[in-house]
């Protein structure tokens, strides 16, 4: 009584304890019926289309609306539960070839319209797929593609991968706000069915298996299996020498590659791969930064090291007196650029200026750091690094999220508490201190 779980199960057990499933005696069907069902497999499409034609010619009288198709005679269609049939006629009102799972409320006009518009546009939406996805789909769709171009269909067999959601959208132009009506509907339906299972029909199983067979069988040849090459006797060179030679070879190779021997990478390939990935990251970050400058409501998250370099606060007025250069105070960037660069010099010279400012004010706590602190630097090689104060940081892309993320500002003012939606998160950049410099 206490758990409160599965109340429906318990209820039914208590209420109808005497009931049992009636054992089903299946009568042997007549020959015609057997023939009909046997034919079904090959001529499924034909049969269905015949049914369609019939329907379109003369609408059924009301009483016969619920009549099941002949090939479903003596069969039970399970409409709920894990064994539910995926596709069967929707009360005789829809096109029978459509593979809609019957859903409550699914007969709403919006759904119907949306489905139709999706189906009519399957052609152009497929363009987004990469070629191998298309190939996969062809296995499933090959039988239907030729004759049913005009038929509205809802392809439940379309497979989506996580790549579809993760894909970088930075180069995709966003559509205007005034979308067409059917486009909006299509969008809605797509959101409701973001992932569709891969479905392989009976007819296609053979084809698939054949393909697999073809790919693995290797024709036998009469040639003998290549034997292991006979080792040359290396009596002259001792084991020690061999090892030494190998060591030297390895060192040479490492030198050629200029790889840090402490590097954790296993081989050249891996290093190459890693570098390529980094470059990819940097390109993506650059693209995102570009997008950020175009759109007001987009943000990029930066995960900084837990401790940032220390800064001292300098008031603008004081700075003018200190630097003794005719700098426009409004031109903040150049001022602070100077400060940072000057600090490099200050390392050599006696630290006069720093001393002056430190007297004025202590280190700025990290959470109150305000003003120009450095720069995002784009290198010739495509590498992106960040300079904060005098410290150099490296960047990489954090894993991409498939879900929506918002940046919001909370106002906890007791008089008018509120939340402001500022915009969306485009991605995340990891910033780590560089140990190479």
């Amino acid at each position, binding site marked *: 009584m206490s758990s409160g779980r599965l109340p429906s199960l318990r209820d039914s057990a208590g209420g109808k304890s005497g009931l049992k499933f009636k054992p089903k005696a299946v009568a042997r069907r007549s020959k015609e019926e057997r023939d009909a069902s046997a034919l079904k497999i090959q001529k499924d499409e034909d049969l269905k289309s015949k049914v369609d034609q019939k329907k379109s010619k003369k609408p059924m009288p009301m009483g016969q609306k619920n009549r099941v198709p002949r090939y479903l005679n003596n069969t039970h269609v399970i409409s709920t539960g894990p064994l539910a049939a995926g596709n069967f006629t929707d009360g005789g009102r829809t096109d029978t070839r459509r593979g809609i799972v019957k859903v409550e409320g699914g007969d709403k006009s919006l759904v119907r319209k949306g489905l139709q518009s999706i189906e009519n546009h399957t052609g152009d939406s497929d363009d987004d797929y990469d070629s191998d996805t298309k190939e996969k789909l062809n296995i499933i769709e090959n039988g239907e593609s030729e004759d049913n171009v005009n038929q509205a269909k809802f392809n439940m067999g379309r497979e989506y991968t996580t790549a579809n959601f993760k*894909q970088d959208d930075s180069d995709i132009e966003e559509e205007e706000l005034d979308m067409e009506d059917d486009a909006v509907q299509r969008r809605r339906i797509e959101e*409701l069915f973001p992932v569709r299972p891969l479905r392989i029909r009976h007819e296609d199983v053979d084809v698939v298996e054949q393909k697999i067979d073809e790919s693995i069988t290797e024709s036998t040849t009469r040639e003998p299996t290549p034997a292991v090459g006979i080792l040359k006797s290396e009596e002259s060179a001792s084991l020690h020498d061999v090892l030494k030679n190998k060591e030297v070879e390895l060192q040479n190779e490492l030198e050629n590659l200029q790889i840090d021997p402490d590097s954790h990478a296993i081989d050249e390939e891996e290093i190459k791969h890693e570098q390529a990935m980094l470059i990819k990251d940097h390109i993506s970050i650059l693209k995102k930064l570009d997008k950020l400058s175009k759109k*007001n409501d987009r943000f990029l998250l930066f995960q900084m090291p837990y401790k940032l370099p220390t800064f001292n606060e300098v008031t603008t007025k004081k700075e003018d007196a200190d630097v003794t250069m005719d700098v426009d105070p409004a031109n903040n960037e150049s001022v602070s650029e100077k400060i940072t660069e000057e600090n*490099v010099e200050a390392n050599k010279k006696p630290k006069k200026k720093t001393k002056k400012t430190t007297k004025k004010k202590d280190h700025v706590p990290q959470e109150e750091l305000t003003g120009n602190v450095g720069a995002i630097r784009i290198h010739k090689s495509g590498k992106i690094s960040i300079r904060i*104060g005098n410290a150099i940081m490296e960047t990489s892309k954090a894993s991409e999220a498939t879900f929506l993320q918002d940046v919001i500002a909370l106002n906890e003012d007791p008089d008018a*508490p509120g939340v402001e*939606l500022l*915009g969306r998160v485009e991605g995340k950049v990891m910033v780590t201190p560089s140990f190479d*410099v």
Partner: protein
Amino acid sequence: MSENENKLFVAEEEEDVVLEGNAVQEVEIEDIRMIDEDDDEVNSDVCDLDPIVKEIPLNFGGKDENLHIFQYINKLRLVNHKPSEHPPISAARYKTKSALWEIDVPLDSKAFFNEDKAKENWNGVEVQTLKGVGVDNTSQYAAFMEDNQAYLVPVKTTTQLKPFFKYIDAVNLKKKQEESKLNATPASQRAQVVTMSVKSVNDASQNRLTGSLLAHKVADEEIQTDLNWAENTVSQFRESVIKESSESTVKPVESHEEYINHLI
């Protein structure tokens, strides 16, 4: 970057140069202390053999802002390669002490929604409630770009918003109560003796509410604040951050080595 690494990525380099477009001006200036007055001018560095072709000034700001990240776990970022529509938000509630967020998203009753059933079984549910707890996220910053400069604003917490089926709980509770009233079994009607004892609060052996239980208790007892949901205020936010950032100047104290030592 070593010379060799440069060799490895000749092809990529060319691609990057194309990507950067007009920003690319390959100028190599030997002296890093030479500073151009103009921000748009390309600065360079003697850092290795990989010169800097472009610098985007990085500013901090918004220390008084109270930024949070919402993660809509049940909402896709991209639908069919396009950014998904933002869910409409009808109400937002917040408990400060427990950092507990609750957000109401109106249900789309136009598709796959049975209004009759909602009215009949679920007290006419109209909104989906998303709930989540804000988790502190130190040294995370939200960046935006303005006038070719980047501005970073610290983020306080990150919240994963998940659907919270309040209406089911409410109905279940009601059902249970009715049930216990109707099927009064002898067991439930039997009088029960409850013994109570008073223990000293200072007793160390006493079980106290800790961890999750305590958090639940605090959250249950806390009064939630109803918040106004505002949109399209981003430009004001940007202006204030930019203004604040331009008014303050900071100067680094440590060199790179000192910083690294400091870190370790």
